[in-house]
């Protein structure tokens, strides 16, 4: 480490031109690429969502064919999960972890480069299949983001093999990203920064990285089994050949449930960084936050079959997975109560990052409540595969994970660019986003409870009112994000200069660095007391 520190002087030599990005080994440049990649996928995935909502604006088939509708829901889900939320968190990890632990860069910079550059290839394949479908050359993946066999194996379109390769690439990218995060956190912490002194965002990412390493190979395994079923005559999931379609679901959700925590634990870290700053008060219950995060991560491995209550599990299985899932409410509750107590008797101000963080706490908690309802097996028989589930996971993933990412961008953008963003525009973006997200997702609870199945392109008449409201919300939500895009570009280009502290009383090593942060972050390790 010391060798690196000594070689560099205090000025930054940045490579220039295309090479700076293609061959980058710098955590900030790679972080920036991750974030822009995520942002562009957000607009693509969002455009697909708007097509879906436009079709669902009223009963009857208006805009797309049912076959293409299924491709839209599939690609929307895959892009939002693997192309938006996950890369955005990796981008934030790249930017923040070295600065927060007092390191010059990530521990494995070349691998960092590769893990990013696999992503455009992966999503290029996936989006190419959609473009080919639009041009009339076969169907894009059309089996939902959960790609249940045998719909995705025996009955999958030719492009399924594109999809499988794409998932392999994403998985390799995620595993390498996770190895890098773990190696960085274990080896590059500033002297004196013990594990229990690490910033909470670093802790949540540390745990997330282990989850990634544990489950991405499981996903790779399941898609490989699909590949051989489809092309080499095996019958892992084909009942006619002695295989088992339900085994697909067990393997998929053994990956899938930890995956949903991969998409929310870093969000917990972000909210736990922002709320204390704008409450001007230390985070309440730091160590219980760490333990709660670890407990959630552990529990995520023993609850997967709560996605499968209707598959005909034995009652004993249903009871086990119901009880285990209920336990998750406890550490999650601890987190919410801790945020509540952090704000309690603070001295609150409401800049845009804090607005998004507060909205996160309120709305993620909504998603938590519906999650608790869903885990109750006898009630889940009525909720399962309805819009109630769609409402639930959009509350945790949009008003949860995506809001936390927006909060993080507003919170750290001045540190990254050296410029303050336009607060007025930020507030406008927040209010439009927050209100429209609720107009969009809240009515989905009602249609779900009334009996509307998910993933249908057309619906019975009693669902019409709330679908229409949701579609209006969707378009407001979608177009509000253009404000966000404009605001970020404007902030990158210029604006009022940010101080090194950025926010009054902001704590953490990243706020000891000047704004914008130097290219190699901490070239001399700071001393942590």
């Amino acid at each position: 480490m010391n060798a690196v520190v000594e070689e560099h002087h205090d000025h930054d030599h940045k490579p220039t031109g295309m090479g700076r990005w293609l061959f980058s080994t710098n955590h900030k440049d790679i972080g920036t690429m991750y974030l822009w990649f995520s942002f562009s996928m957000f607009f693509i995935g969002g455009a697909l969502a708007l097509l879906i909502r436009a079709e669902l604006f009223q009963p009857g088939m208006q805009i797309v064919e049912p076959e293409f509708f299924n491709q839209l829901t599939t690609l929307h889900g895959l892009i939002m999960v693997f192309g938006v939320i996950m890369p955005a968190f990796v981008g934030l990890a790249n930017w923040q972890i070295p600065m927060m632990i007092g390191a010059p860069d990530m521990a494995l910079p070349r691998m960092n480069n590769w893990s990013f550059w696999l992503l455009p290839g992966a999503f290029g394949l996936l989006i190419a299949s959609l473009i080919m479908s639009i041009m009339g050359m076969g169907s894009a993946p059309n089996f939902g983001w959960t790609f249940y066999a045998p719909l995705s194996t025996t009955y999958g379109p030719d492009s399924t093999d594109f999809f499988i390769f794409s998932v392999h690439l994403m998985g390799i990218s995620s595993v390498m990203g996770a190895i890098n995060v773990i190696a960085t956190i274990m080896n590059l912490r500033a002297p004196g920064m013990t594990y229990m002194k690490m910033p909470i965002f670093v802790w949540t990412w540390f745990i997330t990285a282990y989850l990634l390493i544990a489950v991405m190979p499981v996903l790779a395994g399941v898609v490989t089994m699909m590949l051989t079923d489809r092309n080499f005559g095996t019958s892992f999931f084909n009942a006619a050949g002695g295989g088992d379609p339900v085994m697909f679901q067990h393997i998929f959700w053994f990956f899938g449930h930890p995956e949903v925590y991969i998409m929310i634990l870093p969000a917990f870290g972000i909210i736990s960084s922002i709320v204390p700053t704008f409450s001007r008060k230390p985070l309440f219950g730091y160590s219980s936050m760490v333990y709660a995060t670890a407990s959630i991560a552990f529990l995520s491995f023993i609850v997967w079959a709560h996605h499968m209550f209707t598959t005909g599990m034995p009652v004993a299985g249903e009871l086990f997975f119901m009880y285990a899932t209920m336990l998750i409410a406890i550490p999650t509750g601890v987190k919410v109560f801790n945020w509540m107590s952090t704000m309690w008797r603070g001295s609150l101000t409401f800049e845009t990052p804090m607005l998004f963080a507060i909205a996160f706490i309120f709305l993620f908690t909504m998603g938590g409540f519906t999650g608790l309802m869903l885990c109750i097996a006898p009630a889940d028989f009525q909720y399962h595969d309805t819009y109630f589930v769609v409402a639930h996971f959009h509350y945790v993933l949009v008003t949860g994970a995506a809001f936390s990412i927006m909060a993080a961008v507003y919170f750290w953008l001045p540190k990254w660019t050296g410029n303050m963003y336009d607060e007025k525009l930020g507030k406008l973006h927040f209010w439009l986003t927050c209100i429209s997200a609720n107009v969009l997702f809240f009515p989905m609870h009602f249609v779900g409870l009334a009996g509307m199945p998910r993933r249908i392109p057309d619906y019975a008449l009693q669902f019409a009112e709330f679908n229409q409201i949701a579609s209006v919300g969707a378009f407001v939500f979608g177009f509000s994000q253009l404000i966000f895009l404009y605001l970020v570009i404007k902030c990158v280009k210029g604006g009022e200069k940010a101080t090194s502290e950025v926010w009054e009383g902001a704590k953490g090593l990243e706020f000891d660095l000047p704004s914008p942060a130097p290219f190699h972050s901490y070239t001399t390790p700071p001393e942590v007391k």
Partner: protein
Amino acid sequence: MRAVTRPIGLACLLLASNPSFADYQLNLAPGVTSTSQNSYDIHQIVMWICVVIGIIVYGVMTYSIVTHTKAKKHKAATFDDNLKIEILWTVIPILILIGMAIPATSALLAMEDTSNSDMSIKVTGYQWKWHYDYVGEDVSFFSNLSTPMAQIKNKETKGENYLLEVDNRIVIPTGKKVRFLFTSNDVIHSWWIPAFGVKKDAIPGYINESWTQVEEPGVYRGQCAELCGANHGFMPIVVEAKSEADYLAWLGEKKSAQAAAAASGNKTWTMDELMAHGETAYNTSCGACHQPGGEGLPGAFPAIKGSAIATGDVAKHIDVVLNGVKDTGMQAFGPQLNDADLAAIITYERNAWGNNTGDMVQPSDVKAAR
């Protein structure tokens, strides 16, 4: 709640260009069986507990947001931990969860008990229709969506039960414990009647069980709940509960109708008869993929209009329809339809939409090819 949301719904009515609306609902309905009542009760318990917790948590946060602000010159406290309160808000939720788990467990055990049933119906999911087989009664039939394509394509006004109506309803007797056995012919489907609280996956290679007992005669509607391909949204379920006497009468009628249909395979049909019956049978069994006009869906389902198979060798055409095409969405219709239906469909496909081959396929030809 309804008083508040009704105007919002009405306001949105104005946004629609060609609206047709039925009555909406906000909450889960209690349904008509003990199973659905169990689901509803546990749903209400958990939801209201969540509402109360929500009011407390949101209330405390809102109080902080309003009063503990820098704008109001509130000075920040410095506390950052309190072991007692941490233990408290770990233990209280555990107790609440135990309180939820007890009624949930007893409800679940009652719902999953399929013993002592009075009769069994085997339900098989197909892309995209349901097949019902009354076990031991020698009655079985397919149930297809009966909403006309014109309503779906917005060319006709949508009916009251738009997308929730079928050609052959499944009929069950009231006051009897009916056991359902679920399986699938192709991909995973899920049979769901909200009013019964029954939702169970139909999985190829598996037989799942569920049961219901309906006390009141009536018509109950539901849909497939598991994504099963292009027409997942178009395979509804309609159950009619009848008194036992009416049920037995229906069963008798069904038996004689099936005997008549089997006999129709032995006579020789005229071209007009084949074409007329073929159009109906084609639209029911083939139109969802190959489209009523025979043009198919590019990239997903091939056209029949002008296709090599429908205008070429008759034997090959019969083979494709009877045995399906391996590894494609084209099912084997041999086990699904009788000789007369198949002969009519093949004749229709060979002569409709300008295919004009003039070929006529008789039920006996199909029988010979089986």
